[in-house]
C-alpha cells in the first residue's frame, strides 16, 4: 500500500519488431481515459507517440552474479519508475492511474517483471497487472518459427493482440489464432485492425490479467515441437507449502525452460491461490477470499520448452504424497510446432 492507495498498476506491452506495439499504444493513449497513464518506451520509433507523460529509458540490464537472463534487474526501469513515483507522491503530476512499459521488439519480458517484484521500493508501490503481447497477423508465424524471443513473449502474455488483421488472409489469421492458443491457452486473444481497439477492453482485467482462470486448449492438436503446454487440475486440495517446495525446486532446476506457470490453486481455503510466473519470476501469490467463478477446482497451465507434459505430470504424481492430491490433465495435452 502506498499512502492509503493500492499499488499502481504497470502494464507491459511487448511484441516482436514491427508487430504494431507503438501503433496500438498511439491509438490507445489518445483516449481521454488514458491521460493519467505514464509511458516508458525504449525507443522513439517512426510512429511518434505524443503523450505528456512519455519517458524514454535506455535498456540497461544488470546481470546478477551467477544469474540467468530472466533474473536481471533493469536499472533504467528502476530509475524511471522511482522518478515517476517521486513526482506522483509530491503531486507534481496528476495522480498516476497506470504505467505502461513498452519493450523493444527483441526483449524478453521476464526481467521487467523481476525488476518490479525484486526492487525493495518498487515492489511496494507498483504491481504488474497485465502483460500485453502484440502479434502481427502477416509475419507472426514467421516470427514464432525463427525467433525464440517471440515464443517467450507469447508465453508471457495475459492478453495477445493480433494486429494487421485487416490486411492478412482470413485463413492465415485463423491458423495463427490456433497456434497462439496452443502456445498459451491461458491468454485472452483480441484482434486489432489498423491499431483500432478499445482501451477499456485492452486494460480491463475481467477474464484476463493475472487472476484469469486458464482454460484448456480446445483447438486442433499440432505437430510435436519444442514448446509444450499442459493444463491440469488436481483431484483434491493441494498443500500450498508442498506446492511451493515443488515449484521452487522446478524453477531452480529448469526455470529458463518453464516459460509460464499460471493458474488458480485450491489449497483447502475459502478461496484459491493465484499462481503466476514467467520463467524464474513469480508474481507474489495472492490468497483470494473467494473463488472468482462457480468452478472451485484447481486449474493450472504450464508452458515449457523442452519439457514434455508427461514429465511434469510424472513429477507431480511422484510428489502427490506431499501435495495431498494427484494431478489430472485437462483436455488434450498440446505441443506447439516450432516450425
Amino acid at each position: 500500500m502506498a499512502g492509503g492507495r493500492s499499488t499502481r498498476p504497470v502494464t507491459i506491452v511487448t511484441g516482436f519488431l514491427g508487430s504494431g506495439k507503438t501503433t496500438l499504444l498511439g491509438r490507445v493513449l489518445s483516449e481521454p481515459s488514458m491521460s493519467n497513464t505514464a509511458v516508458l518506451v525504449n525507443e522513439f520509433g517512426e510512429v511518434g507517440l505524443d503523450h505528456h507523460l512519455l519517458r524514454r529509458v535506455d535498456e540497461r540490464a544488470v546481470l546478477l552474479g551467477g544469474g540467468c537472463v530472466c533474473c536481471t534487474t533493469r536499472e533504467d526501469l528502476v530509475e524511471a519508475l522511482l522518478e515517476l513515483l517521486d513526482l506522483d507522491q509530491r503531486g507534481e503530476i496528476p495522480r498516476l492511474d497506470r504505467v505502461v512499459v513498452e519493450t523493444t521488439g527483441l526483449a524478453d519480458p521476464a526481467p521487467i517483471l523481476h525488476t518490479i517484484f525484486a526492487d525493495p521500493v518498487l515492489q511496494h508501490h507498483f504491481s504488474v497487472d497485465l502483460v500485453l503481447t502484440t502479434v502481427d497477423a502477416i509475419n507472426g508465424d514467421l516470427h514464432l518459427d525463427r525467433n525464440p524471443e517471440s515464443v517467450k513473449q507469447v508465453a508471457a502474455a495475459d492478453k495477445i493482440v493480433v494486429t494487421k488483421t485487416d490486411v492478412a488472409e482470413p485463413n492465415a489469421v485463423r491458423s495463427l489464432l490456433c497456434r497462439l492458443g496452443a502456445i498459451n491457452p491461458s491468454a485472452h486473444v483480441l484482434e486489432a485492425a489498423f491499431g483500432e481497439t478499445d482501451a477499456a477492453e485492452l486494460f480491463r482485467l475481467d477474464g484476463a490479467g493475472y487472476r484469469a482462470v486458464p482454460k484448456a486448449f480446445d483447438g486442433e492438436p499440432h505437430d510435436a515441437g519444442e514448446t509444450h503446454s499442459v493444463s491440469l487440475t488436481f483431484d483434491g486440495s493441494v498443500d500450498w507449502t508442498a506446492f511451493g517446495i515443488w515449484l521452487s525446486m522446478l524453477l531452480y532446476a529448469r526455470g529458463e525452460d518453464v516459460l509460464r506457470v499460471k493458474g488458480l490453486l485450491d489449497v483447502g481455503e475459502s478461496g484459491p491461490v493465484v499462481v503466476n510466473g514467467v520463467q524464474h519470476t513469480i508474481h507474489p501469490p495472492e490468497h483470494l477470499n473467494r473463488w472468482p467463478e462457480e468452478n472451485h477446482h484447481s486449474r493450472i497451465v504450464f508452458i515449457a520448452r523442452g519439457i514434455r507434459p508427461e514429465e511434469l505430470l510424472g513429477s507431480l504424481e511422484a510428489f502427490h504424497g506431499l501435495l495431498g492430491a494427484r494431478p489430472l490433465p485437462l483436455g488434450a495435452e498440446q505441443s506447439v510446432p516450432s516450425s
Partner: protein
Amino acid sequence: MCVLCGQDFVAQVHWTDRHLEDRAREAAPGSDPVALQGERRRDRAHRVALTNEILRHYGLKLDDWGGSKYFLRDGKGRSELVQDLGSLWPAAERLAGRTLDPLEPALVGETLGEEPAFVAAEGG
C-alpha cells in the same frame, strides 16, 4: 545485519513466504501476536518436514534454525545456513554436487511422502 541480534535484514521476501508476511501485515491492530507467531512456526516445521522427504534422496537434511533461517547439512558434516526456499536449492546443489531436479527420472519413479511426515525439526 543487526548488531544486536545478528540477523540479516531481508529486503526481498521469497514468494513462498509471502502469504505469512501478508497475513502478519493485514492483521488487525489488536490481534494476538502469539497466534501469528505460532502459525508461522507450524508453517516452518511443516515445510522442514516436507522438504526433508525430498532432501533425504540426496543425503541432505534440513532443520529450522531459530525460527529465522534453515540449517542444511549433509552426511559429511558440511552445512550451510539458508534464508528461504530460493536459497535452499542452490545450497543443496553445492552440498549434493548436482542439481536437485524434480523431473529427474530417479525421483519421478519414487512416491515421496507416502508415509505421514512427522516434524523433524529437532535442531534449534
